């Protein structure tokens, strides 16, 4: 499983009653073992279950040209056995304990998780710590699994026109930064990837001092720390490879690409370079951009849907996205499908008009308040998912901001002003900063007519 552009739902707390309640659920404890493994525990005693997540601070951002996809490939190999646990056995033991498990790879990190009854945490720790140190990647297992990953790539990207367009757009929008490479890897690289590549990756990056252990659920922090010491404590730290700094030189003019793929409807994405959050206390622009995304697309009556889908009927679908929390430079995207009889040029003009309105007239206090109210409520709803709370902690730890940034993010989002939203719109919605991708739909021949929109069933 791989997740890209994981949506980080930032949130803030204003209602006193909610504040008190959220505080009661906000006990987060942390400890760093002597080998460098940081352990973060979120206690939540609503149900007798626990989630363990191990987040390695390595992802496709750390890959080199020619071996793209190796971070994700190793994620698959992590289920293929250690010195004492044969291939497939990890999953069997977790299943026998009533557990669910999986893993995901992103540009910035690679994470592994199990959800079980809280009494089964020692088993999960035993297995997860074992593969932190003792993984064995055999050539035979690799040869089979790389075929699985190629199937995953075909399913998720090659045969999915919107994903394909997005992949090609990133490869154009970023000229130098490794975010130009897809997490799953280019097919050409997968074809020549070797078991040795994944072994080297494992030896280089999989170490307690390059990981965060997050445990959330019906547990006691001090007991988790003891267990962590017992299972992970003996694993020696490793000297990590030097992380080369990556930057992206300023774009010097608009870029446009066309992607042809079998489809009925055209599709448009406009991607503007935008800053990521580096200093949660001092910066304000990333927060203003988050609020801006909410004003454009945070609900059905937000600007883009209201104006372009409902009123002007220029688009049948439209959206905006921005991700402030990442290791590297990020993007603000606008995307949509033109209505029947409208072209991508019409839709682009409509989106540009929305930007012009923002820059000229700014946003209303009412819109600002609405976005903040949604964020407030989201902070409460978040408490209904122990898994999501652990995700938020792990993600922030992996990209270097740390879980202690969570309340700061909430506070700073609350402080965003209408003027700041207008200012970031003016600063970042610039053509020199923009890459535009258009899906040019190609007919499929020989297929039956009239397929429905029934749901697909995708087991991960």
């Amino acid at each position: 499983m791989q997740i890209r552009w994981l949506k980080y739902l930032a949130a803030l707390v204003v209602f006193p009653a909610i504040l008190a309640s959220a505080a009661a659920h906000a006990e987060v404890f942390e400890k760093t073992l002597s080998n460098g493994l940081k352990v973060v525990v979120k206690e939540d005693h609503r149900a007798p279950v626990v989630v363990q997540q191990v987040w390695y601070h390595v992802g496709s951002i750390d890959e080199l040209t020619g071996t793209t996809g190796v971070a994700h490939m190793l994620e698959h190999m992590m289920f293929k056995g250690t010195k004492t646990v044969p291939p497939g056995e990890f999953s069997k033991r977790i299943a026998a304990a009533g557990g669910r498990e999986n893993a995901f790879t992103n540009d910035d990190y690679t994470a592994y998780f199990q959800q079980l009854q809280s009494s089964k945490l020692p088993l999960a720790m035993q297995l997860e710590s074992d593969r932190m140190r003792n993984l064995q990647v055999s050539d035979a297992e690799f040869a089979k699994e790389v075929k699985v990953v190629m199937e995953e790539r075909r399913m998720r990207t090659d045969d999915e026109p919107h994903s394909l367009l997005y992949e090609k757009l990133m490869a154009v929008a970023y000229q130098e930064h490794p975010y130009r490479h897809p997490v799953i890897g280019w097919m050409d690289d997968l074809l020549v990837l070797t078991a040795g590549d994944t072994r080297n990756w494992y030896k280089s990056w999989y170490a307690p001092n390059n990981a965060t252990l997050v445990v959330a659920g019906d547990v006691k922090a001090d007991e988790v720390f003891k267990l962590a010491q017992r299972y992970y404590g003996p694993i020696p730290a490793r000297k990590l490879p030097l992380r080369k700094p990556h930057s992206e030189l300023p774009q010097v003019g608009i870029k446009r690409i066309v992607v042809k793929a079998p489809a009925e409807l055209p599709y448009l994405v406009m991607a503007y370079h935008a800053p990521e959050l580096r200093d949660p206390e001092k910066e304000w622009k990333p927060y203003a951009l988050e609020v801006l995304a909410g004003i454009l697309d945070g609900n059905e009556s937000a600007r883009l849907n209201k104006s372009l889908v409902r009123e002007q009927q220029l688009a049948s679908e439209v959206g905006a996205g921005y991700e402030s929390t990442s290791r590297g430079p990020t993007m603000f995207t606008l995307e949509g499908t033109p209505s029947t009889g409208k072209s991508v040029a019409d839709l682009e003009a409509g989106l540009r008009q929305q930007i012009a309105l923002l820059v000229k007239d700014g946003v209303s206090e009412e819109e600002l308040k609405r976005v903040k109210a949604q964020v407030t409520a989201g902070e409460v709803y978040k408490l209904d998912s122990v898994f999501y709370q652990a995700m938020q902690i792990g993600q922030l730890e992996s990209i270097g901001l740390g879980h202690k940034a969570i309340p700061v993010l909430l506070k700073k989002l609350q402080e965003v002003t209408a003027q700041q939203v207008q200012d970031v719109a003016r600063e970042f919605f610039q053509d020199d900063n923009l890459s535009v991708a258009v899906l040019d739909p190609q007919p499929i021949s020989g297929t039956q007519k009239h397929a429905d929109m029934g749901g697909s069933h995708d087991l991960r």
Partner: protein
Amino acid sequence: MTCAKLLAAALLSSAALFSGSALATPHIQHWQAASGARVYFVEDHDLPMLDVAVDFAAGSAFDTAGKSGVAGMTLGLLDLGAEGLSEDDISRTMADIGAQLSGRFEPDRAGMSLRTLSSVAERNQALDTLAQVLQHPLFPEAVLAREKIRLIAGLKEAETKPESIADKAFNKAVFGTHPYSLPASGEVDTVEKIQRADLEAFYRAHYGANGAVVAIMGDVTRAEAEAIAQKLTAQLPPGGASATVPPVTMQIQPSEQRIAHPATQSHILIGVPGMARDDPDYFPLYVGNYVLGGGGFVSRLMNEVREKRGLAYSVYSYFMPMQQPGAYQIGLQTKKDQADEALQLTRATLREFIAKGPTEKELIAAKQNIIGGFPMRIDSNKKILDYLSVIGFYGLPLTYLDDFVGKVDKVTVAQIRDAFKRHVNPDAMATVIVGAPEEKTEHAK
């Protein structure tokens, strides 16, 4: 949810794993509102939030072939205009308080669910709006015209997607002319013909108070829950309790459709009509399917197709239990030139399973996972709300969750073998391959 802890304690007392003793689960309160709606409520004050769902027997199975899409459009337009509220008013009143309103649309069921903060001002604003949406929808002409255009564009797009093409051909092959074969959102030519009057008529016929199932989960008292249920249903159309889905023809002719598509992968679906929600074989089939293709990384299909041979990323099987038997479906995607190999392997794995059933060891592993994982089925308000809706809609016993572990535990290898033999005949199944290997692409037996 604290009651779930007792369950864990029971499970932990070692040998008690399969004891099947009475286990504590959420306390479900049930009553009939004065409106006639059936209400299912779990009171829980741990979090300051409230989840509510209201469902009707108004899914796509209540469409007709000539007006396919009316059911989905009726639900879709509920929150796009109600007495005193424009579509924009509805979305804004929800967004202003951070409430989330969403629709649920299935072959049997159609409904709306709401998540809101439970503080009085927010809760009232959200529930007032939901009450209008459910009981006084306007189905505005202009909105319908726009939504038809959007839906038709989406249907045409779906016609180019291999997974959608496969689903549609599969449902036709498994269900013939039964309404379970109807596409969820209709066809291009039937959607074009939808009139406002169709929606009003469908609404009056299928959104009656007597057929409504209200599920309420979270931070309100019983008295408050009673008032909420009544407020959401008192002004629904009268009647509406008698809607049923016609019986499904269980025996189908074997068929294999190969449909060309330029995708790099073939999408393969194999299946038959499976089981109804009230099938006495429900638990043997559910547990047995875990072994064959429902158990994720440890299922037989996953082991044969993916782990041993690397032929697919995803391969699965599942039953879709509904009022009448929904499909039993096996699915996978694989590179075109190995589609036939994967298909033969999948069929052989199924055939072997039907002939011999699971091993004792596999059955124990399945029970360990399903029983041991039970606490995770009810570890959030959202999951409990979904159980309340299902229990209410399908008339399952209020003790469904209490009985679950014991029923799983009682399943035997012989029951699974027997139930699968009666439900899944490997010689009479529907197979659909979209993006079939080029040289063989034609309709074949």
